[in-house]
């Protein structure tokens, strides 16, 4: 027995592993919906990505001569792979998942020092790397086909993920991509926005998009679960959604022909996933309350700006990475006022006397 014990002699928090488990539990509905909508290739891609992350984590820990078991057991590598898989095109080839997973863990996480030390969100860093390096594979969307999960397709689906790739026949465009392409052809929103777009049904995932992002309502339900479980706070999700919605409301009210309405922005692409699961990543987001507001608001605003004027139809991953880079600075300038002191660190008493 170690005879030196310091207070407190009690401990109340959930261990890190339990936190990760809750996050995974919250991701489950949207993930299952993704498998159901996009079939076996989505399931295979998810497995490959998660396995790649776990394997990369084990290799890094081995070479860093750190104990492997506790770090792998906390589930953080699984979660990284899971989040990355959800942000990938569902029928992307296996090597996209494997390369992305390895990049996320080796370059974005362990090169910075491992768990807790990384500056950038590993999943988003990997997604951006893949998007820039493999634009074709990363923008191959398909219309959902709920019956694709039929066991009869399990074998033929292997060819999609591990062989020939996605057949052209099923390809489709994501809404944001479609609108961007049409806008570049000079078409106004009234012409390009599909008439049947409906916030209620779109939010359940029945549309082209990333593996786990199309079921925005399911993602949001998981996010609310995390908030209720006090795994994440409300500040970053609310601020991020507001950061996207406010400029969208203003712009689409002023020029409805040119700017997408807020509902489309919020439910399309990765906004909801980012608001609840990506931007709230403990390691890469600010620790101070006001810093979290700033991080979310500016991150949302950047998303809207990139989507509206950037070269890419989707801006969530870029916005998150930019805000990750700003996080140390935000933390530094938004440090809370210490009890009994003014903002500048002088005692309140000194203020009163002088």
């Amino acid at each position, binding site marked *: 027995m170690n005879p030196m014990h310091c207070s*407190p002699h009690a401990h109340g*928090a959930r261990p*890190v592993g339990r936190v990760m488990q809750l996050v995974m539990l919250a991701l489950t509905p949207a993930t299952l919906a993704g498998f159901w909508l996009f079939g076996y290739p989505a399931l295979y891609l998810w497995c490959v990505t998660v396995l790649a992350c776990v394997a990369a984590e084990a290799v890094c820990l081995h070479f860093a001569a750190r104990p492997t078991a506790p770090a792998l057991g906390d589930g953080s590598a699984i979660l990284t792979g899971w989040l990355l898989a959800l942000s990938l095109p569902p029928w992307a080839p296996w090597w996209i998942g494997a390369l992305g997973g390895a990049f996320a863990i080796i370059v974005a996480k362990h090169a910075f020092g491992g768990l807790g030390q990384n500056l950038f969100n590993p999943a988003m860093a990997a997604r951006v790397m893949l998007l820039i390096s493999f634009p074709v594979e990363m923008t191959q969307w398909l219309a959902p086909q709920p019956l694709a999960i039929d066991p009869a397709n399990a074998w033929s689906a292997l060819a999609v993920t591990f062989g020939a790739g996605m057949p052209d026949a099923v390809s489709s465009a994501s809404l944001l991509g479609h609108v961007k392409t049409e806008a570049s052809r000079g078409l106004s929103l009234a012409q390009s926005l599909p008439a049947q777009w409906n916030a209620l049904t779109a939010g359940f995932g029945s549309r082209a998009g990333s593996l786990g992002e199309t079921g925005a309502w399911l993602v949001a339900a998981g996010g609310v679960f995390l908030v209720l479980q006090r795994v994440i706070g409300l500040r970053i999700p609310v601020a991020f959604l507001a950061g996207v919605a406010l400029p969208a409301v203003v712009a689409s009210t002023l020029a409805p022909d040119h700017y997408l309405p807020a509902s489309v922005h919020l439910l399309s692409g990765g906004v909801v996933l980012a608001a609840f699961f990506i931007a709230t990543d*403990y390691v890469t987001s600010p620790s*101070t309350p006001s810093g979290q507001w700033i991080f979310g608001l500016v991150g949302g605003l950047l998303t809207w700006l990139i989507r509206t004027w950037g070269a890419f139809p989707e801006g969530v991953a870029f916005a998150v990475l930019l805000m990750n880079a700003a996080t140390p600075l935000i933390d530094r300038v938004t440090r809370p006022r*210490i*009890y009994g002191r003014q903002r500048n*660190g002088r*005692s309140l008493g000194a203020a009163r006397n002088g």
Partner: protein
Amino acid sequence: MNAPLLSPFARLNRLVRRWGAHPEGRKHPAADTEVALLPLPPRLVLPLAQHVGAPARPIVSPGQRVQRGELLAVAQGTISAPIHAPTSGVVLGIGDAPTAHPAGLVAPAIILEADGADEPLPLEEAEPFALAPAEIARRVAAAGIVGMGGATFPAAVKLSLGQRRPIDTVILNGGECEPYLSCDDRLMRERADAVVDGARIIRHAMGAAIALIGVESNKPEAIAALRSAAKPFADVRVVPLPSRYPMGSAEQLIGWLTGREVPADGRSADVGVLVHNVGTAAAIQRAVRYGEPLTRRIVTVSGGALRTPRNLEVRIGTPASALIEFCGGIKAPVARYVMGGPMMGVALRSLDVPVVKGTSGILALLPSEVGGAEPGPCIRCASCVGACPIELMPLDMASFIRAGDLDAALRIGLKDCIGCGTCSYVCPSQIPLVQFFNHAKGELAARERERTKQETVRELVEARARRMEREAREKAEAAARRKAERERAKAAAAAAAKAAAVPVEAAPATATSAATAGAEEATA
């Protein structure tokens, strides 16, 4: 009389700033049974340093017979407190005894062998409300009362410090936010009249308008008992507090009840408030009204490994083992014995450690209660930032300290840390944050001492150099003066010789007198 009104801003602030943690109370079953009197142990160990400040100075010698309440050691210096005999008996000696220190350090203590007669000294009673404030402070000082919530700051010093500034509100701290502990709870339930009387005596001594007794809402019986005891008095109000750790910290309590914020380098008196623990108030009441010194207190004996957790009234100096034994001993392997509460208490290295004035609990904790997994890496979840009652950023402070950059930790508030341990408690990676801070504070204190030492040495060296220089200069000046003197004399002699060419016999006389003057100069 109305309680000080909280501004709407202060009310909003209470809602928005959700500092602290909600540790499991674990106050039962100890809180459910009446306080029992622990039989007199055969031997009492009375450490000379049971309070913040200078240790008391013993005035008894080995072999001396003392009566209950007799003075054994007197206060030394401005911040100190005397120590009295908890029972009658014979002083065995003054020697080293184990203390509640994590490293098991020993400290000087008076060893008293009880004779079992428990003969008291006659006490000097008084009517508190007829006494002048200074006289009340004097009686409290003479009784050796210290902060009984665990801070052990001499109560009389607090009273006199408070008398230098206008105090409008006296607050009695009945928060008892530490898990397991229920000694204040039982005191408030069973001796509500004494607590309320104590509150009124302190209010009277400070000339304050009102005394507030803050009690966490997890003690409804105590609140009810105090309310009925306070009913006849307009100057005492009982205010329920939310159950939250560390609500019992003076700054948090003041903030919650009055909305005032104590300056970082100030005391609560600077914002017109004086805070005393309810146990201290009851002791003050005994001292001022009945002249009784502080020689006993209520201690919670609890923990998952203890057979029958309960509260005991114990003589100061009783070894911890006697309390555990009286409560049926342990029923399961003990991971850790703790003196005080689990959040800020000290792990005991030995059960020979005696109960002192600030001992609120003796806990025998199971392995499952103490936690203690291996710390993992910080995942920057900011739980500690949200929990810190004074809005520090423990995660950043800890990483600075880990990197050895104490100055950076200081810049972001290390000195303001109150050591409550809430950050460690909520950390999902089980990082011992508060231990980092306590270590760093110790390191800084050592650095400060080293700096003072170097400064002193430097000053001494400089003073010596100055003295040497002055002496050398004086010597040189003296030599120069002598030389000038001699030359003047020579010149004078020459002039005299020239002038007195006619009376030749006068010349040697002048030369002699000049030489004599030179010799006088040299000896001077």
